[in-house]
C-alpha cells in the first residue's frame, strides 16, 4: 500500500526534526561558502594576471626547497576523504547499535580531522613566513604571502646573481581570499572535530545506548561530510584551476 505522507500523524519527510534542520543549516552554509568562492571568482576574472597554484603550492614538510607542486594539498585532500569514510562507517555502526564500532570509527575520524588541521597550520605558516625576493617600486624586498602582500606576480626582467629569477608582486586579493576561505573552512573542520569529540564522549558514556538510537552520530556525520564537500570546491578553486 502506498504511504500517505501528508495525511497526518507521520513526519512527512520521514526524518527526525533535528536531522531535517541539519540539512537546512547545511544548505544555508553552502550559500555562505558559495558566496565567498563566487566573490573570489569575480575578482579573479577581473584580473589580467593571477598566480599559478602549481607555483605557489609546491612545498612539502621536511622536503626543503624541492619543487613538489600540489603534493602536500593532495595529502590533505586524501586525509579528509579518509576521515569522511571513517565517519560514514561510524554512522553505519550506529545503525546497527554497535557501540564499540561507533567508538572505534569516531576516534579515527577525530584523528583525521586533527591531522588535516595540523597540515593546514603548516601550510599557512609556510606561506606567511615564506621569503621571496620580489621587485617592489624598484627595490628588492623579501616578503611572504599575507593579506596585504602577494609575492607571486609575473617575473621581472632581471635575475639575481645566482641566476634565480626575481618576481614582482601579484594581485593583493590572492592572500585575503586564500586565508579567508581556507580559514573559514578550517574553522568548520575545527568545530567538526569538537562536535565529534562531544559525540565520542556521549557514546562512551552510553547516552545513545540508553536512548536506543544513534541519530546524533548521523547528524554529526552530515556536518562532517559537508566539511569534506566544501573542501572539494575549495580544492577546485584554489589549487586545481
Amino acid at each position, binding site marked *: 500500500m502506498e504511504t500517505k505522507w501528508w495525511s497526518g500523524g507521520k513526519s512527512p519527510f520521514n526524518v527526525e526534526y533535528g536531522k531535517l534542520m541539519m540539512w537546512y543549516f547545511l544548505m544555508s552554509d553552502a550559500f555562505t561558502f558559495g558566496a565567498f568562492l563566487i566573490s573570489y571568482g569575480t575578482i579573479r576574472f577581473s584580473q589580467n594576471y593571477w598566480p599559478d597554484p602549481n607555483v605557489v603550492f609546491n612545498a612539502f614538510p621536511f622536503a626543503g626547497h624541492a619543487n613538489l607542486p600540489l603534493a602536500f594539498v593532495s595529502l590533505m585532500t586524501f586525509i579528509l576523504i579518509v576521515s569522511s569514510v571513517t565517519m560514514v562507517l561510524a554512522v553505519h555502526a550506529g545503525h546497527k547499535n554497535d557501540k564499540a564500532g561507533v567508538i572505534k570509527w569516531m576516534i579515527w575520524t577525530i584523528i583525521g580531522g586533527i591531522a588535516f588541521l595540523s597540515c593546514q597550520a603548516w601550510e599557512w605558516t609556510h606561506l606567511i613566513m615564506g621569503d621571496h625576493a620580489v621587485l617592489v617600486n624598484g627595490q628588492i624586498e623579501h616578503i611572504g604571502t599575507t593579506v596585504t602582500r602577494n609575492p607571486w606576480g609575473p617575473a621581472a626582467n632581471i635575475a639575481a646573481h645566482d641566476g634565480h629569477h626575481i618576481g614582482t608582486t601579484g*594581485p593583493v586579493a590572492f592572500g585575503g581570499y586564500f586565508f579567508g576561505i581556507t580559514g573559514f573552512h578550517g574553522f568548520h573542520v575545527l568545530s567538526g572535530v569538537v562536535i565529534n569529540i562531544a559525540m565520542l564522549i556521549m557514546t562512551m558514556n552510553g547516552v545513545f545506548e540508553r536512548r536506543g538510537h544513534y541519530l546524533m552520530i548521523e547528524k554529526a556525520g552530515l556536518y562532517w561530510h559537508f566539511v569534506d564537500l566544501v573542501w572539494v570546491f575549495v580544492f577546485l578553486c584554489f589549487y586545481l584551476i
Partner: protein
Amino acid sequence: MEHSVQEVTFHHEPGGNEVVKKIIKTTIILSVITIIELGMGLAMYAFPMAAGLKLFLKGVIVILSLLKAFYIVGVFMHLGEEIKTLIMTIIVPLLLFIWFIAAFLWDGSSWKVLRNTYNPKATTEVHAEGGKY
C-alpha cells in the same frame, strides 16, 4: 494513528556487508577522480598548452568535482535514500547557484574588459588602479 502526538518515522533497515561494500566502492571512485584531477592540474603546469585546451581541461576538472560532490551527498550523506520531497527542498534552492555563478563571473570579466579598454596601461600592469585589488 490520526490522534497520535508522537512524530512517526520509519527507519531504514540497518543493512549489512553490502553497505560497507558500497562505502568502499565510493571511496575508490572519489580517490580515482581526485587523482585524475591532480594529473590534469599538473599537466597544465608541466606542458605548455594553448589557452583553449587549458580552459577545456579546467572545465573537465569542474565537472569531475561536481561528480565528487554528487557521490559525497548521495552516498556518504545518504540523501539518495531520503524521500523525494525532502531531496527537492534541498536541491531546488541550490539552483540559485546557476544564476549566482554566471552573473558574478560575467561581472568580473566585464570589469576587466572595461579597465583594459579605458586604461590601456592596465594590460601591462598587474596592479591596475594602484594595486588596490
